[in-house]
């Protein structure tokens, strides 16, 4: 019998050893990145020295010296760049939050309409989605701002809605509430009613568990919540006084003014993002298999209950992650404000402040880190939420 001692193989070159290669590639990659970084850093240093720009964040304390068309906190031209930055962040958050709220509502309505048994409604929803998600958001912002809002008549010929709301080329004017002496009692009454309402709903769940019927507890809770504050307001006076915009001279006085840039930006972002949210909602609801609906119906749940207790909880699991990324997209798209001069963080801080101070690296770094912080914190929150509602399997 021949022995099967293998021929001694030639020793493989160290270059083909996977471990050596792994190390080699990684070291090369790191060296490459470090070299690039050093190259950029070195160039920047020499360029800054040549141009005589001092790096550092000291400029934030300097006085800004320009006006801002919309500020949620007090601002004067002599205020510092740091305050300008805060105003920019607040304006970005404002337009993002309004946009997210409106786009969610509109998106859910259109998404449900796409699944409606009504043919006409379904077609309208489809056309809406296909039209608006295929047009660049910046173009939509331009359209609302330059083609719709700017040609509006001046304050004297404003379009009025019931003598309370006015639209003209300077913005949208609406009544503004301010607190009056009736506010505290009504607030206390509201809080008490809220507690009572929560107690009622708890009772309702308990009774539902015991007898299968929650009785009158739920309507009672809602009734209390509505009636108690209203009665208090009726007895002790309204909690708010309304300041209604009125035309005096060449412009309106009183009330709240929404600048046209904000109107255009909100409209465009809402309409654009809602088209995407609608598709997300549709696919989420369609992902719940038909057997679930049938099972719920055969258990005797009514269509409303089927939707609320069976379909939506399961659909949300599919809907939430893409919905989050739509919210993030909307927030990032709000930076398109730079195109029409809405004073958001990018146009205010990375635009005006950068041009005035010449501190390119610092302003860009601050702006980008704010967006990165928003993105990362929202995705962390959503991952937590996702874990909480994830399907618990064996």
């Amino acid at each position, binding site marked *: 019998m021949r022995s099967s001692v293998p021929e001694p193989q030639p020793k493989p070159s160290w270059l083909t050893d996977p471990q050596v290669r792994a190390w080699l590639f990684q070291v090369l990659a790191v060296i490459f990145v470090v070299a690039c970084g050093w190259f950029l850093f070195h160039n920047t240093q020499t360029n800054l020295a040549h141009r005589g720009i001092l790096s550092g964040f000291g400029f934030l304390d300097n006085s800004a010296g320009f006006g801002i068309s919309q500020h949620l906190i007090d601002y004067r031209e002599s205020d510092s760049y740091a305050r300008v930055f805060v105003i920019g962040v607040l304006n970005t958050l404002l337009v993002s939050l309004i946009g997210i709220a409106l786009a969610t509502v509109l998106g859910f309505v259109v998404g449900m309409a796409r699944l409606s048994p009504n*043919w006409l409604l379904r077609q309208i929803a489809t056309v809406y989605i296909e039209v608006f998600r295929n*047009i*660049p958001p910046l173009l939509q912002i331009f359209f609302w701002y330059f*083609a719709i809002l700017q*040609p509006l008549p001046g304050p004297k010929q404003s379009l009025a809605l019931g003598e309370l709301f006015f639209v003209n080329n300077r913005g949208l004017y609406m009544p503004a509430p301010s607190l009056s002496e009736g506010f505290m009692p009504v607030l206390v009454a509201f809080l008490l009613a809220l507690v009572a309402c929560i107690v009622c709903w708890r009772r309702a769940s308990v009774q539902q568990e015991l007898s299968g019927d929650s009785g009158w507890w739920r309507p009672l809770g809602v009734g209390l919540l509505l009636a108690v504050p209203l009665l208090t307001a009726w007895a002790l006076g309204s909690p708010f006084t309304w300041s209604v915009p009125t035309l005096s001279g060449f412009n309106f006085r009183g009330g709240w003014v929404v600048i046209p840039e904000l109107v255009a930006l909100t409209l465009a972002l809402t309409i654009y993002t809602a088209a995407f949210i609608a598709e997300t909602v549709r696919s989420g609801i369609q992902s719940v298999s038909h057997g679930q609906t049938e099972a719920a119906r055969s258990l005797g749940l009514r269509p409303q209950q089927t939707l609320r207790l069976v379909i939506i909880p399961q659909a949300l699991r599919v809907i939430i992650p893409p919905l989050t990324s739509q919210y993030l997209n909307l927030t990032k798209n709000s930076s398109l404000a730079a195109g029409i001069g809405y004073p958001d963080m*990018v146009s205010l801080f990375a635009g005006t402040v950068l041009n005035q101070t010449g501190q390119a690296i610092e302003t860009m770094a601050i702006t980008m880190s704010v967006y990165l912080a928003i993105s990362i914190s929202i995705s962390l929150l959503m991952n937590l939420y996702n874990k909480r509602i994830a399907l618990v399997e064996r």
Partner: protein
Amino acid sequence: MDKHVFRPSLPPPALEVGVLGWLRGNLFSSVGNTLLTLLAGYLLWLIVPPLLDWTLLQADFSGSQRSDCSGEGACWVFVRERFTQFMYGFYPAELRWRVNLTVWLAVIGAAPLFMPLMPRKPIYGLGFLLAYPLLAFWLLHGGFFSLVTVETSQWGGLMLTVVIAAVGIAGALPLGILLALGRRSDLPAIRVLCVTFIEFWRGVPLITVLFMSSVMLPLFLPEGMNLDKLLRALVMVIFFEAAYVAEVVRGGLQAIPKGQYEAAAAMGLGYWRSMGLVILPQALKLVIPGIVNTFIALFKDTSLVIIIGLFDFLNSIKRATNDPAWLGMSTEGYVFAALVYWLFCFAMSRYSLRLERQLDTGHKH
């Protein structure tokens, strides 16, 4: 004995079939549904007739100046008069044949790729992909082989938009695939680098990136080295979209079962060959819709270069609406722009649907 004769079957109830049945089933099946139909019909009646009136029935198509428009409806004369500017920007008029030729070469060159019976398609495709960009650059930019140079600052209009989109797609796809592979790699240093790159670019808006390209890149580069404005924007667009492509491709890579990786390794394939021959062909096929969606987003994102002052399609329209001779034409201009962007994006999304069906080998559940 009489033979039993069945009575002929009755026709189906008139309300259940045909037009009436369809109407009843789809529009008036219940009280709520009927109300919805009426509401939707009212909405349509509010929107559609005025829209038709404005865009077509009352609109003016002929003429050459503003006074030729009645003002009742849209003034499409404006778009017609400025059409070449919208298409070519400031590209010299006598050299526009070069742009046209580039487009025709793309159409003719790519046509064989869409013929099912074409032999040696991969080789031809690869050759086309390698040769065409060089040829296109030579035709559009010129500067050697006896073509006059046209600086990129003269490029504009739809042509510039398509150039940015095409270069962006051609650069972002391979870079994105590499990044996705890097993110799934076993080598920790490579993985960390790729994750950092992807998360950075996905976390910031494109506008800030473009701002950065115009204010920070000059600081980053050695003294005297000045990159073209268009080139800077292109680099940024490629990096930005590559990060999104990478995440889409990673989804596909994760969907491939582990057995495929192991089988490829068992066949003795190395890393690159197992990826190129086994994993990527399957993974990319799975994520075609996602990739095309990214490309659609890229096409829409090209409009942002207006922020750094490039004269793309949207910017050339915006400029034209500011022209004193044509004041008040913004609606017409933006509606036309919307139509063009919409056509491109919609066509891409339809094509991706077709491709998805074509490549479906029935392995999906």
